[in-house]
């Protein structure tokens, strides 16, 4: 049983920021994913159907798009935000599962390592189009 409230002077709000950032990243992702899906899969759709363009996504098309600073910004922020949002979501699910919840700290660190590594790997892949 927890100590009475009056002794809880030191108690701080835990878990607020992950919850809050999950919402912030969610809102940003709605716009970024919208732009991403529209640009890669629908803006060129007419040309592909008319036969003026071979496929929706090809190396040269992506390279062309990524010459614009705006899309470099969109793609890198998309990668970072979607990783945060997705892995934080996984963390929320795992925290409700006893064996993982008991090692919450290690799990959080593990997910951060996974996230940072994947961001590095994804950036390395993206730079193939830019450099």
């Amino acid at each position: 049983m927890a100590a009475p409230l009056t002794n809880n002077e030191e108690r701080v709000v835990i878990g607020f920021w992950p919850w809050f950032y999950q919402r912030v990243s969610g809102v940003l992702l709605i716009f970024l994913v919208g732009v991403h899906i529209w640009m890669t899969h629908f803006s060129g759709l007419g040309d592909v159907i008319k036969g003026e363009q071979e496929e929706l996504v090809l190396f040269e098309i992506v390279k062309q798009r990524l010459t614009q600073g705006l899309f470099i910004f969109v793609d890198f922020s998309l990668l970072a935000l979607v990783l945060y949002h997705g892995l934080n979501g996984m963390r929320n699910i795992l925290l409700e599962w006893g064996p993982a919840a008991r090692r919450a700290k290690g799990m959080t660190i593990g997910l951060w390592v996974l996230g940072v590594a994947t961001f590095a790997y994804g950036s390395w892949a993206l730079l193939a189009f830019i450099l």
Partner: protein
Amino acid sequence: MENVTLSIRRKPPEEGSEGYWQEFEVPIFADTMSVLDALVWVQRNADPSLAFRRACRVQMCGTCGVVINGREGLACGTLVRSLVGDDGGVVRVQPLRHLPVVRDLVIDPGMFFDQLRSIDPNFIPEEGVEGPVVLSPDSKERRTISPHRECIYCGLCYSACSVVGLDSGFLGPAALNRAFALVSDSRDGSGKQRLQAVASEEGLWRCHTIFECTAVCPKGIPITRAIQGLKRNVIVDKFKGLFRLGR
């Protein structure tokens, strides 16, 4: 007089014993017969060893909570007729979920009350206030807190909550509802501290607005609204602190 088939989840009190379903034919002796009436009929006429809790039988005490046809309800507040219509049928009764079963329909509510106790659910008066504080019945504050003070601690919401089912460490809807009633009450002196007590990963942030608690509450308390209210309280508090506008 037609019958209803009452299918009851039985479990002997011995530890490690297996549970099983047992069916009883119960006459519907009145249109107003509740599930509790049916259980009492079984105990008196068919099997005196059937164990269940009850006290007031008028939806005031919150003692007879069970799961009826897969949905939490007070046995005394659920009419058999509302479940089977006019042609009879099967009514399944089982103990509340997420709590250890002592025997048959009797659960041990200890965990539920431990969670409640952990937020210090009693009123803590503000220091230095003399005499009664007036909170008029039509004031905004009174209207906000009123429904949330109706809780009878029957545990139905705790049983219905999918998050409690996944994570027994979760505070649960009833405790959060009680915290909201106190946090929103200007007469209570520990508002901010209580807010901090519930704003943890095992507390407030674990609620995923599934609305099961609100759906089963026999007092019709909009519990999810309370939990969301607490979240907004924390947000306001956080950003006040961030910009140093607060106390």
